[in-house]
């Protein structure tokens, strides 16, 4: 009886909804007002690209509130307009023209226009400024204003998916007010001025940053929240406790605090936001040093790894095994990525076949995580007769060691990015400073060159899968886990988009 009653009521409700036109409206009305407190892991170092060089996740998250980029990603990972309304490219994908949104102003009243975009670029590119950020725009030759609302990007190497590369709220793509940067000088770093939906209210270093609704925001009716508070909470246990105790509404999390994520999943007052991104935690093998110059040894090492067990040991099983550099979050889906089977028996045979003792060193970060990672791999490899020595070095020593190829095997990372080209080309094309495997293969080079100028996504996918097959079969790099990004929030927090690149963008969030 109750079920028929419910059905009838539902029918009435449906009829009413369609009659009044509610059927077309979103299921939940977005509530205006309220404040949201976000617990981050790290202190925000600041926003001036010349000072901080590269934004970390904390800076990215804050930047997504205060500053804006020309393009954003929609929920399918495709470019959508933000400060730019539309774009087009030349036939060779080397010249990109962006039409900018009119009537947008920075928080200090400075008009946003093509000159402002070009000025930001020139400042980062200027060799006199020695900006670390310049590394990431090495492919941009120039950014020129054509008229007030048209800006032209000229690229050295072509990029078919260039607008997607401008979407990350990072040191290069975020647009700052030129007047504010010039007026504030050294103090600009801690007093950012952008066009974003929120404006900086106050910032106590090490404690909290408070941002408030921008009343003149170009997207009328947004943002929904009045205020967002960002707090650095470095300890993972007390960060989670602050969420449980109601001091924060949303906290950053990662898979190394699997216990908190698993607990939150069972808690009805909480929700776990997770995003299976592209890219992976990766390792590069130096193919020029014995015994790793022998492909049998390299294959054996890769085949010895049981990723499920490794995930269990390090992250209570929540880390997702990776078999290629693209991951579930990428639009590159391969029927055959050429991954070697996990087969320790076969691996032991290959080592025997090689005939000489297999001993080498591997670089890890000087952290407990680095050590745990090393010990698990060491154990897998010991079982097939290979002897790995763990060498832990601090984070700052990684780039010099990597660039000078002073390693046998080193950990590295391919970050979640809307297009595979940038990182794949840099990591695998002959002659690139981060082609860490010291490996050169004309066929691989040809595929990488072709993939970056092929507009057809299906054809590009074929090329990227062929690239994955070569890398996997030659075992020059190997992948352990896919990138997964996490946040834990109170159940009432709504409207947080996918965590692209690990960035928790709450600029459009509301409280239910």
């Amino acid at each position, binding site marked *: 009886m109750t079920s028929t009653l419910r059905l009838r009521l539902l029918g009435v409700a449906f009829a009413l909804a369609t009659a009044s036109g509610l059927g077309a409206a979103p299921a939940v009305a977005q509530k205006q007002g309220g404040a949201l407190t976000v617990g981050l892991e790290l202190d925000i170092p600041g926003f001036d690209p010349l000072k901080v060089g590269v934004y970390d996740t904390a800076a990215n998250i804050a930047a997504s509130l205060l500053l804006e980029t020309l393009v954003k990603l929609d929920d399918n990972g495709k470019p959508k307009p933000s400060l730019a309304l539309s774009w087009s490219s030349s036939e060779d994908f080397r010249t990109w023209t962006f039409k900018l949104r009119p009537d947008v102003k920075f928080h200090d009243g400075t008009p946003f226009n093509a000159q402002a975009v070009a000025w930001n670029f020139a400042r980062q590119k200027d060799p006199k400024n020695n900006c670390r950020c310049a590394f990431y725009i090495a492919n941009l030759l120039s950014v020129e204003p054509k008229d007030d609302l048209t800006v032209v990007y000229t690229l050295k190497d072509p990029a078919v998916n260039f607008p997607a590369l401008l979407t990350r709220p990072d040191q290069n793509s975020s647009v700052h007010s030129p007047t504010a940067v010039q007026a504030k000088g050294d103090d600009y770093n801690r007093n950012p001025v952008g066009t974003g939906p929120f404006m900086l209210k106050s910032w106590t270093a090490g404690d909290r940053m408070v941002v408030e609704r921008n009343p003149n925001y170009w997207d009328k009716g947004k943002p929904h929240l009045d205020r967002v508070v960002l707090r650095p909470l470095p300890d993972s*246990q007390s960060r989670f406790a602050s969420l449980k105790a109601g*001091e924060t509404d949303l906290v950053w999390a990662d898979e190394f605090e699997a216990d908190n994520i698993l607990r939150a999943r069972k808690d009805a007052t909480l929700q776990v936001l997770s995003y299976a991104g592209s890219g992976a935690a990766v390792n590069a093998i130096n193919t020029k040093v014995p015994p790793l110059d022998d492909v049998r040894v390299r294959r054996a090492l890769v085949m010895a790894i049981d990723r499920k067990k490794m995930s269990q040991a390090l992250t209570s099983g929540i880390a997702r095994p990776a078999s290629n550099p693209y991951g579930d979050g990428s639009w590159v889906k391969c029927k055959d990525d050429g991954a070697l089977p996990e087969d320790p028996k076969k691996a032991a045979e290959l080592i025997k076949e090689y005939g000489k003792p297999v001993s080498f060193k591997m670089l890890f970060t000087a952290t407990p995580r680095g050590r745990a990672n090393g010990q698990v791999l060491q154990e897998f490899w010991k079982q097939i007769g290979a002897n790995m020595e763990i060498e832990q070095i601090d984070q700052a020593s990684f780039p010099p060691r990597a*660039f000078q190829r002073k390693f046998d095997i080193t950990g590295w990372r391919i970050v979640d990015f809307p297009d595979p080209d940038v990182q794949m080309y840099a990591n695998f094309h002959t002659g690139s400073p981060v082609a860490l495997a010291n490996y050169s293969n004309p066929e691989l080079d040809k595929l990488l060159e072709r993939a970056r100028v092929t507009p057809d996504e299906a054809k590009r996918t074929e090329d990227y899968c062929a690239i994955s097959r070569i890398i996997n079969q030659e075992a020059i790099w190997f992948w352990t886990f896919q990138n997964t990004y996490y946040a834990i929030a109170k159940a009432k927090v709504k409207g947080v988009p996918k965590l692209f690149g690990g960035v928790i963008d709450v600029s459009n969030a509301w409280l239910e």
Partner: protein
Amino acid sequence: MASFVGRRLLYLLPVLLAVSLLTFLIASLLPGDLAYTILGDQATPEKLAALRAQMGLDLPIWQRYGVWLWDVLHGDLGRSFRTGETVLSAVLDRLPVSIELMILAEVIGLLIGIPLAILCAVKSGSAIDRFLTGLAFGNLSLPSFMMAILLIYLFAVQLNWLPATGWVPFSEDPVGNLRSFVLPALTLAFAEWPALMRILRSDMIATLQEDYIAMAKAKGLRPARILFVHALKPSSLTLVTVTGINIGRLIGGALIVETIFALPGIGRLLVGAIYARDFIILQGVVLFVAAGFVIVNFIVDMLYAVLDPRIRHGRA
């Protein structure tokens, strides 16, 4: 007395100089190259050389120390290359938080430690004495990060009485400010009181066997007066020393406690600077901490003189 203070102050100078030299050497000898850290992925050999020359990193270490010391003496501790903050403002912004934390921790430690020590000394050898000394020992072996998590779980998550993390400026909300310090200060105090209690207890037991105490008792003075006036003051010399030296331990504890409770103090600043290879901040913070430690111990030396006239008159 004035000449005593003057002599002590003179000792202070070489100590501070040695501290600054050590700080500079340690920061210089740490692995990782400042120029590399700043340039990162763009570190070509030419750019590295140019930046090193620009920052004076190519000079011999003694010369660099000289330049640094000269700047420090003129009040210029440098600027963080990462955030653009001056070292002085970075430290001064966070110092009040750490000082408040340490004072509260030490006060709570003493408030727990002194009464229990007196109780144990009076009832020395009794069941209660054995129980309390045992408790102190057990408490000592519980690491502070563990204690912090337990306190957060109980008082913040379960009972919701006190905040788990964070800090409110005293000027904005004095009650909120004190509330935010309760759990961190308790965490540190729990590591403090056992040592304080054990030291005072044994000194007090020795004092209580002195002839003049027997004399006081014979005169019919009230036991409370004997304990607090006649016995406590002469028994507290070691306690004062330890309290001074403990400042060093408290700073070490603050690194952990400020991180767990997300307090914006100099402990957090130091940890952050180490992770970010921000040598300039690191050097500045260590110099401040070391100078603070030296000065506190200078004050402790002064207190001796107050407590024990023999020291004041150089007859000890």
